[in-house]
């Protein structure tokens, strides 16, 4: 292998795996900075803490790759969560409660999808409307009061599966599902194509509206599950819960290399993005960083991720132009 090929390979590795290297580096630095960081208990806590946001982020990832996004996910999470808790208190059935959450998540997202596909509303505006409506519905249903004494409902968020906290298992399960959908289904390939160039995807025989609708429905399922886990973890149905989680989810996806211009992104990248934020938050607490400063750092990381994304892309284009000229 000659030097040129080697440098190409290295560039390829760097662009493909850079996010995991950042994660690894952050892990090592955190380890050096504070010995408590690497304890099993601490890592388990971080994973549990990020699980709800990460599950939302998987839904966002699919949407962002196809050139859309969901601002309503946290509000719909709250609505699905309180209705699910309430359904449990009425029926005593965990299964029914779980299904109610998913049903609510899906219904809200079908509405999102209809606004986007039938009425051609930009996803930003459509989901902004849903964000406000769903939060209002959650507050109206509960009269603004939290629902307490939820009994066995806590098992979703506080129980253990295979010795691990249940939310972590859910997170891993949905990671695999997202990976499978994106990699191994016609739907997944269509999602990438639509985000990459919607008109060309349509001219290639892809039913763009159908795929977009499905992306929202899948997002709805994820949001419903996240709703169950969230309410179960905090021991109550809280209509004002999870405020700002939609941005946590977007942050994880963007840091994980999902491109807001569409067509690029992976489930594992998003997971890495979520862990980068999780590690960073955790280590900043452990070494006693001022909490306001923490927020500034979090914001700066998003800016860096986006700048890197754009920089990497322009570099690629330049490379391409270089190729043409040298011909």
């Amino acid at each position, binding site marked *: 292998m000659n030097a040129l090929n080697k440098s190409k390979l290295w560039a390829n590795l760097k662009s493909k795996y850079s996010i995991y290297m950042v994660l690894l580096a952050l892990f090592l630095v955190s380890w050096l900075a504070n010995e408590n960081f690497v304890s099993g208990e601490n890592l388990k806590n971080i994973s549990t803490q990020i699980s709800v946001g990460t599950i939302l982020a998987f839904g966002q990832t699919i949407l962002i790759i196809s050139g859309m996004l969901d601002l309503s996910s946290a509000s719909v999470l709250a609505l699905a969560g309180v209705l699910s808790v309430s359904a449990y208190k009425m029926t005593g059935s965990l299964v029914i409660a779980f299904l109610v959450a998913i049903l609510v998540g899906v219904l809200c997202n079908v509405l999102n999808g209809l606004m986007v596909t039938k009425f051609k509303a930009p996803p930003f505006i459509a989901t902004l409307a849903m964000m406000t409506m769903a939060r209002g519905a959650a507050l109206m249903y509960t009269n603004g009061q939290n629902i307490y004494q939820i009994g066995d409902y806590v098992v979703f968020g506080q129980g253990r599966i295979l010795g691990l906290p249940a939310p972590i298992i859910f997170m891993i399960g949905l990671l695999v599902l997202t990976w499978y959908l994106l990699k191994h289904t016609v739907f997944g*390939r269509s999602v990438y194509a639509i985000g990459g160039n919607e008109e060309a995807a349509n001219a*290639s025989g892809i039913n763009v509206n159908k795929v977009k609708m499905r992306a929202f429905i899948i997002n709805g399922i994820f949001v419903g599950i996240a709703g169950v886990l969230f309410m179960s973890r905090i021991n109550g149905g809280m209509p004002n819960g999870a405020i700002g989680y939609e941005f946590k989810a977007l942050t994880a996806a963007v840091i994980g290399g999902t491109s807001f211009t569409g067509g690029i992104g992976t489930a594992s990248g998003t997971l890495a993005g979520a862990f980068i934020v999780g590690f960073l938050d955790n280590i900043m607490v452990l070494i006693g960083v001022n909490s306001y400063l923490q927020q500034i750092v979090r914001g700066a990381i998003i800016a860096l991720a986006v700048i890197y994304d754009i920089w990497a892309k322009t570099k690629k284009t330049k490379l391409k132009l270089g190729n043409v000229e040298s011909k």
Partner: protein
Amino acid sequence: MNLDIKLRVSNVEKFFPGVKALDKINFAVRKGTVHVICGENGAGKSTLMKVINGIYKQDAGQILIDEKVVDIKNPIEARSLGISMIFQELNYMPEMTIEESLFVGNWPKDRYGKVDWKEIRKRTLQLLEKENLNYAPETKIKDLTVSDIQMLEILKAISYNSDIIIMDEPTSAITQKEVEVLFKKINELTKRGTCVIYISHKMDEIFRIADEITVFRDGCVVDSRPKEDYDMETVITQMVGRKVESIFQKEDIEIGEQVLQVYGLTDAAKFKNINFQVCKGEIVGFAGLMGAGRTEVMRALFGLDEYQAGEVLIKGKKVNIRNVRDSIDQKIVMLSEDRRRFGIIPVRSVRENVSLSSLKKFIYKGRLHAEIENQTVADLCKKMNVKTPSYETSIEALSGGNQQKVILSKWMVTDPDILILDEPTRGIDVGAKHEIYKLMTMLTKQGKAVIMVSSELPELIMMCDRIYVMAKGEITGMLKRDEFTQEKIMAYATAIRAQ
């Protein structure tokens, strides 16, 4: 030295990578005249206008105004030298009002540096009154018709006190009545001493409006004379006869039964009563000037746009194609003229671009069969001679010709019977063109039918068995291979022999 000459172009040359777009261009425009520039698509007309307007910089030669050499660096400088250009595709901001757009970038300011709306209103009203135009200054641009917007552009040019107004195919989007208004306006302008450079290839118009005519071909001026010394036949003869870039020997391939029959295809706004047939093993060309409606017919046939009336029969059976998927299922595919917009998914790999239209061949029983996908993509790309570092390279890193071959490969995976190729060789180099011709031959040998839409007459004449010619949304003629001449095709395309 001739004081009557307003604008002189002297030995201007312009190179683009691999092409000489303008070759020692010389001509002069006299004060108060309409100077028509005509030539086929790609003859260099627009390139020269962009040089004059300061969008491109010439590589050699000079531009003279009032016989003094000028250096035009950008359109703003061109404007200050009295040159205005009205583009073929009008760039306008739909939400702006007439008065706002008239002074874009040049808004009068009051002494605090605030935009002086009173002054703008005053000047707009003056201008509208002077030019006898009946618009309210606060009308939004989006509420105007195309010809209104064009009028507005002319108004803008007048408001800059332009001496030279360049109009690039100004009548391509307006009705006959509006054309009359435009011509009246042009007459007024020339009476005042303004010169108008008018780009067009509509023969009837040219001979009505021109004082002088310059014909372009292959980046050169063929001839430049007063209108009186020209007739339509001469202009057409001078326009055609472009050099053939790549000579390709068409092979004799047996032509089979009819596979596609189209009857009375109509879409009120774009084309009407389109009838044609295509046979197995045949290459059928569609010639016509820009805006003749060729692409629109093909898009309707392919299910990208709807049509209002007409029947499509495939192998004698009536089909109802409502979307691209239906079309692919009926074994019709289309390579779009706009590769970047309708062809490639730029950020994705060559592999994903090739398999895009046939995903079900690789994804079944709940998983992706990567080995089958890789094999299919590799086989086809080899057959199509796609040059790429790897099949995982993103398609945008390839040259135009190779991108085109990737898109062709995508369609080949669907195993089509009928291929519509809309400008298949546009924007690709000579070598790649040759390869596309070879591929077309290979396809017809396999018994496929090919419809080739092209603006390059030599390649149509070289490749086709029959050619349909379109003008203004209708088929104006059909020629068999032994009847092909550029003059005949151009005559039908300019509709001077329309039935």
